[in-house]
């Protein structure tokens, strides 16, 4: 696929922005909303996802606050929002079968849709653009490998 790069062994879609610390991608969706899902590096470092729970539609979240919770290999932790906004949709199929997030992280495995309150203002916290994104993603993978978070 032309908009997909292999970066240090991970598939990275270039048609969206990323919050590389939260391991989430953000893609413009219909209307004013964005779709959010987990990137392959996040999936790799979390381990097998066994549970996903998302905030109810209508919930307002601030950037950095949790919009959901995941359980992966007995670790339960928050999924922190890359943007401030209101949840307008959540992926019931992903909650019922988290395996689809691993099989199709950029497609059917999306998490939620959110209407951002200040997308332009918060966008600088995201990483996007082919050159910048590929370099930043590679640096993240290298960093994790140096720390032993990822196997060589």
């Amino acid at each position, binding site marked *: 696929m032309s908009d997909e790069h292999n970066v240090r062994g991970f598939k990275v879609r270039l048609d969206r922005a990323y919050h590389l610390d939260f391991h989430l991608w953000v893609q413009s969706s219909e209307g004013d909303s964005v779709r959010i899902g987990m990137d392959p590096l996040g999936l790799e470092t979390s381990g*097998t996802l*066994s549970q996903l729970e998302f905030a109810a539609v209508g919930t307002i979240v601030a950037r950095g606050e949790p919009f959901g919770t995941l*359980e992966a*290999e007995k*670790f339960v932790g928050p999924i922190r929002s890359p943007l401030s906004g209101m949840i307008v949709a959540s992926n019931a199929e992903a909650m*019922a079968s*988290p395996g689809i997030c*691993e099989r199709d992280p950029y497609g059917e495995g999306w998490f939620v849709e959110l209407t951002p309150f200040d997308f332009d203002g918060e966008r600088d916290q995201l990483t996007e653009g082919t050159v910048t994104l590929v370099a930043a993603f590679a640096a993240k993978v290298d960093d994790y490998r140096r720390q032993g978070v990822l196997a060589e």
Partner: protein
Amino acid sequence: MTVWRYLAARNVGGAEGLAFDEALMAGHGRGQQAAPVLRLYTYASHVALCGRYQHIEAELNIDACRRTGTEIGRRPTGGGAIVMGVGQLGVAVVTNAPTTMRPKDLLEQFSLGIVCGLAKLGIDARFSGKNDLKVDGRKIAGLGLYLDGTGALLFHSSILADLDIPFMLEVLDVPAAKLGAAGPAAVAERITTVSRETREPCTGDTIRDAVALGFCEALAIELAESTPTDTEVRDAADLVTGKYATDEWRFQRSPQADANSSSMVKTPGGLVRVYVALQGDTIKSAMFTGDFNEMPAPLAEYESALKWARADPDALTALARRSCGHDTGLGVPPEQLADAVWQAAAQAMEHGVAAPLIEGSCYFPESGEVVPGEVSA
């Protein structure tokens, strides 16, 4: 040397014990400077605790819990259902979540304190699989991790100082509970206790000091004995009434359906049966039974690895090869075992919420009898 706060408690209630652990998290997280906390405590006998997203009705025998006065609770951490009481030592570590470590690495790091503590009792326990401590392949402690939205971390463990297996099988709705008279032996093959390993009767209280010492040595820390602050006591009381003792928390339902099924594998030594329990597309437990005196080590390894694995044929095959190598110990290739697991899992997923298994003899039907939810591989 880093100084940790140390709290000890005995005979705490189920909701109270969980609430206090969460209350301790308030002083931790991003930008907070509170000292890490180690809490070693026992619950009043007995409390049945299921994991964060489990369905209580599928994991516990509610009637038996009521009949025996067993309190029912839900942990903030993941994993499976457990029974806690004076025979088990609860371990809680509360600190800031480091951003540079995987959850699995954090589990391993904190488990070193328990490993070291058990070593002081003459027990050689090791981290095994995703989140267990085992002694010669038998589980002696379970581990779990919860990170909240503020960056605070709660590490939980339950150490089996001792265990009343028949009682556990009465209140937990685990596959071995359906094995009837064979159930306790099946559990004993997979679980051990400090009492069993040391041949001395032990309780959570009697192993507490060894575990505390283990944390000091393994993590190079000092423990400063402490008591709960007024704020922590107040916060914990609020969490009891507002969360842990409420039916909304305890009986909440996950979007994933529970399902179970079984299948059989023909081996040169006879039939081997595999039982799987799923939540959504994740295997929450698996158990092999067959006509063997002792379960072959590769089979035990595979059974253990299946816990919390994805129910996917390729993943199950890869796991079987990794666990068993070329030799399953049964005279059949690992792929055949994986196929049996997949057939059971696929049938369970097809059922969605599976029909209740028949009590008693459903795991050992008369020859030729097929039980609901069973397929042959």
